[in-house]
Structures are given as C-alpha cells and as structure tokens.
C-alpha cells in the first residue's frame, strides 16, 4: 500500500493536467475491471459490472499547484494559484514542472508585513538569467507542483499530494480486492476538484448512479492549539456528515455507519467547517444523486508535507469493501 501511495503521490498532476496520474491508475487496474473509459474532462471511469445498484466512488487525481502567467526579462516567473494556496506556507517551497524543471518561490523583499505578501508580490526563480533562457525551460501557461518526498514513519505517511492521491490509492486497492457483489461499481478518478469540483460533475452525469461517495481527506483537530474538531488522525476514516459543499444524504450516511459497525471498523463522524469535496457537485448533478463521503484525517492539507495514518487508509479500504456488499 505504501508503495502504491508513494508512486501515485509523486506523479505530476495539477488540475487540468491529470493525464499522467490517469495513465498510471489505468495500468494498475488493467484487467481488473470490466470497462475503462475517459470523458471529455479527463475523468477516468473504471466499471465493475453488476445487476444491482449503481454505486459511484470518486477520488480526485488533481493536486494544487501554480501556473506561470508571465516571464520577465531577467528570467523570473510570475505565477497564479491553481487551487487553494495558503500564501504564507508556499514561500521558499520548491516547485517542479512537467518537464522536470525545478524552481524556488520567493518574494519581493521590500514587503514590510508578511501578511501583504500576496502572490502578485512573489516570483519563481528557475536559475535562468534571461527571458530567452527561461522560455527554453518553461512557457506561460505551464503548471508546476510542489516538491515533497513521500516518507513512512511511525505508521504515518508524510508526503505532498496526499490530497487526494490517498483517495485514489484507496479506490485502486478496493478495486483490486474485488469484493463479491451484485452491485455495479464505478471507480471514478476525477479531475479539477481543487478548482471547483468540476470533473465529478461530468463524470456523474455520464453515470447517473443510485448513490455516490467521495473519497478525500479532511482536517483534524489534534495539533497544538488548533481549532476544535472532533476528528483525530489515527482514529479511523471518517463518515462525512457535513462539509462546506454538502450535507450527506441520510441514507448514504447510515449505510456507511452500518457497514462500519457490522465489520467492526473504527470510524469517526466528520463535520468539516472548511473545504468541500466532489460529493458537493455530484449530489446536484442531473436530477440529484444521494451522496456522502469517507475522508482520511490529514494534517497540514495543501502543504507540501501532508500527514496521515496508514491504519486509517487500510480501514477506509475495508469500509469501502463492506459498503459495496451493502
């Protein structure tokens, strides 16, 4: 499982550029599902056929990053955000472009208060000494991702892009375990979640499932002096009750709780005050699709070093398998 997560988290895939991640997942599931297709937004949809209920699981392939908007005559890059970037933690981070070019984010040094250090006042240095030299390495419109190694320590995984390659890994692993069921299962790897839950919309429209779950990460309330939140890392995957995008459908939520209790899987109830997931766009697609979610409690979301507990990941896979059997 760790190797799977490592391989997925280290693959390049900012929003709108998820092809490499999709390719990797497609290969992992080759021969393990009955049908694989890609829609116009790049969503990868893997189907395990069945005659029962149509159940859709969504995990997003895209990660946050930056987009180059301008290259100045000295070869410095100006950039905008792809997804939600907390400006204070990106300073000094490394970014990597699809072709491997690495850059460092820094800021114009005449800023007196770091609160005023908006993205407009930052730049990326790729070590180029002129516009011409820079343009050989990077073009306007290219996207970069944050650099962050994947490490396993004390049963915790530390890496960039756990949001949401963890969800992808959980879906891949669940599909590979191939639980016996009549239900038709759609393993959907979505695109452009970080910029507005976009891919899930078209994927769900093409499936119109009876119910859907989003597999994603959620914040925790277990770090020094953090905002109060009942969810703790390592205490089990969450059954989503509410986030900024959705209040889970009561039947979907109850089905998840039943599944967890039946198989004795630890779980926590999640009410997230911030953030949304694909469930938010799936449940208003077409005539409405009852939706809910499972999240992995994750610290430092959207940083280049996110942290989660491997036990939560394993238990999420077990919970999904149980949910499938219904």
């Amino acid at each position, binding site marked *: 499982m760790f190797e799977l997560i490592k391989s997925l988290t280290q693959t390049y895939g900012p929003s709108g550029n998820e092809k490499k991640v999709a390719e990797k997942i497609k290969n992992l599931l080759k021969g393990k599902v009955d049908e694989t297709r890609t829609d116009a937004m790049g969503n990868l949809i893997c189907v395990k056929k069945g005659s029962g209920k149509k159940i859709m699981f969504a995990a997003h392939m895209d990660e946050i990053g930056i987009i180059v908007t301008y290259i100045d005559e000295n070869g410095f890059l100006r950039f905008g955000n792809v997804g939600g970037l907390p400006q204070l933690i990106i300073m000094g981070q490394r970014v990597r472009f699809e072709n491997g070019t690495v850059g460092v984010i820094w800021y114009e040094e005449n800023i007196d208060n770091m609160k005023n250090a908006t993205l407009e006042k930052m730049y990326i240095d790729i070590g180029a000494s002129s516009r011409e030299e820079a343009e050989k390495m990077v073009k306007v419109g290219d996207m970069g991702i944050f650099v962050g190694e994947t490490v396993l320590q004390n049963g915790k995984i530390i890496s960039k892009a756990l949001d949401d390659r963890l969800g992808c890994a959980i879906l891949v692993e669940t599909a590979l375990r191939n639980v016996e069921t009549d239900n038709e299962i759609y393993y959907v790897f979505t695109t452009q979640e970080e910029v507005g839950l976009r891919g899930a919309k078209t994927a769900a429209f093409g499936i119109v499932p009876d119910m859907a779950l989003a597999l994603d990460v959620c914040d925790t309330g277990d770090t020094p002096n953090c*905002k*109060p*939140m*009942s969810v703790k890392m390592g205490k089990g995957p969450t059954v989503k009750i*509410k986030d900024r995008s959705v*209040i889970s459908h009561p039947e979907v939520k109850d089905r998840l709780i039943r599944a967890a209790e039946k198989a004795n899987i630890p779980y926590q109830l999640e*009410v997230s005050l911030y953030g949304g997931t694909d469930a938010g766009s799936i449940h*208003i697609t077409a*005539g*409405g699709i009852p939706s809910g979610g499972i999240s992995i409690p994750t610290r430092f979301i959207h940083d280049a070093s996110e942290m989660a507990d491997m036990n939560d990941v394993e238990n999420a896979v077990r919970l999904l398998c149980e949910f499938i059997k219904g």
Partner: protein
Amino acid sequence: MMECGELLKELSGISAITGRENMASEKIAGLFREYCDDVRIDAFYNVIGLKKGCGKNPRSILVTAHYDEIGLIVTGIEDTGFLRFDAAGGVDPKAIGAMEVTVHGKKDLFGVIGAKPPHLIPPEDSGKAVKMEDMRIDIGLDGEEARKLVSIGDMVSFRTVPQKLLNNRIAGKSLDNRSGVAALIEILKELKKLHHEDDVYVVATVQEELGLIGAFSTSYNIKADLAIVIDACHGDMPDCPSDETFPLGKGVAIAVGPILSRKHTKEIIKLAKSENIPYQIDPEAGDTGTEAAAHSVAREGIPVILLSVPTKYMHTAVEMVSVDDVVATGKLAARYIAGRAKD
C-alpha cells in the same frame, strides 16, 4: 381546512433543518394530501403534490417553496457534556445568544445556548460579537450521558412559540419559508374553487439554505414549462435600504429582473391590478438568492416568476410576516395559473 394563520403557526412549529428534512417530510406531505391528486416524497425528501388540470393537453406548472430551515449542527461533545456546534445555513451568531433550542438526538432534548453575565465580561470584550465557535449548548447532562443521546452531526432547531401580533401578523421561527409553504396550500385551496387546464406541481423543496439544492433536482426532474417560486423577501426596517425592503401588509412582492421571465411577470402584474390583489414590485438585479436562480437555468431553461412574502428579522427565531400577504400570494398565483393564456 385550516385558516391561514393557524396553518402558519403549525408550520412554524415543525422542525426541518436544512439537509435533514426527512424529519418533517411526512408532515408536509400530510398537509398536501387533502388537496392533491397525488403526493410523493422523492429521494431528496422534496415533497411533490400534483393537482391535475382538466385540459386535454395540459402543460406543467411547477410551484416551489422551500421548507427547510436554518439551524445548528453538533460538531463535538465535550467531556463536561456541553455541545459544540456550527451553523447549518446562514445563522447570525449575534441572534442566538441566550436562546432555547431543541437538540434532535436519539430523542428530542431541551437545551439552552448560554451567555456570559455582563458582570463577568471584561471591558475590552464588551463591544465585540461572540463567535459561534466560542458558544456551547447546555443540555444539562454530563459527558457520558450526553454521548449516549447525542452524536456529532445531530441537528439543533430553535425553540420558540409563535406569537400572534397586531394587524394579523405572526412572529416565529422558520417563517422563511414556511409562509411560502402556507402559500402553496393557499394556492391549492384556491385552485379547488377554480377551473384550471394545466397540471400543477406544488413542491415543498429541501436544502435551499445550503444552495438551492432541492430546487436543482426538482426542476430537472419535473419538466415544467413555467415555474413559480415563492420565498421570503426582507420586510421594511429602519436602517435598511428602502429599495431592498418591503412593508408588511402591503401585499405580495412580485420580482422584476434579468433572470425572471419579463413576459410572465408582466402578465401576473396585470392580473394583480385587475383582480385588486395587493402587490408591490421587488427589483432584483442579480440572481435573487432564491430558487428562481436554479429553475431559470434548469435543462433547456424554464421561465420563472418570483413571488415573495415580506418578512422582517429574517434568519432569527422571531421572523415576522403578515397573514394577509401570504393569502394574497396564494390567491394571485392560483388565479394566474387558472387564467393562464394559451401561448
């Protein structure tokens, strides 16, 4: 058949927190059954009543009013038994200090949101609003007992007794938008007396307060060729812009603006004039913040009329409406439906 004021009181007493309307969908369905040919509850707990028309080729008119209400959601249970919470829908933290509530746990529990006595508030804090994350609900139980009865995600509603006031006005919780639901029933009552050709779907919708969610599924599933939305608009108050608020008792507010069908809106204004039904014009330059925004872009697009009941003190536990305005809203919509010209 219940008189409109009594109906409003009853509707105000129902709890249907946004996202968990399954608490009340049967009750609403029960109110519709008296007047409809068919009533069903869909997968999202939208309550859909159908009153068939007598025309040979009836068109479908969709009339929606949301029945969800704002409330609170339990986010944590402390070892001392106090409950932490967050808003479900747009709750103003200033309006919930020292408030009685009902916690919908394994059973309904009485609770109270406390407030610090003025003696203990340090002077530097006295001018500040209290944040929701600093408030707790006190259900009078210790942690162990509380956890047996309450779990994270349980909903909390405001607890209040509807008040009948001067000039046929009523104040209570959830009148945004139970007065809309009452207007739906007024429409059904009125249609019983009238001859109407078109099929009328009256729908009490869910999750409006979370972003028009019930409206999206309703207008996608029911292929209507006209939609009428009934919701609340702001009643007039000192200190508020006079072109965005409307006096109570002066009739239904008919919205005019870019997302609304100019043609149908003109017709209904004309009808209100000729039938002497009191009305006011509600200019809406944006997307109105109502279900009209969902219906107008549903599928290939549905022409929409927006009627609003002026409501004071919106999103508090003492929302106030005039019963006469609710009756006027129902009457106007029903007459428009019955007299609707063939295109």
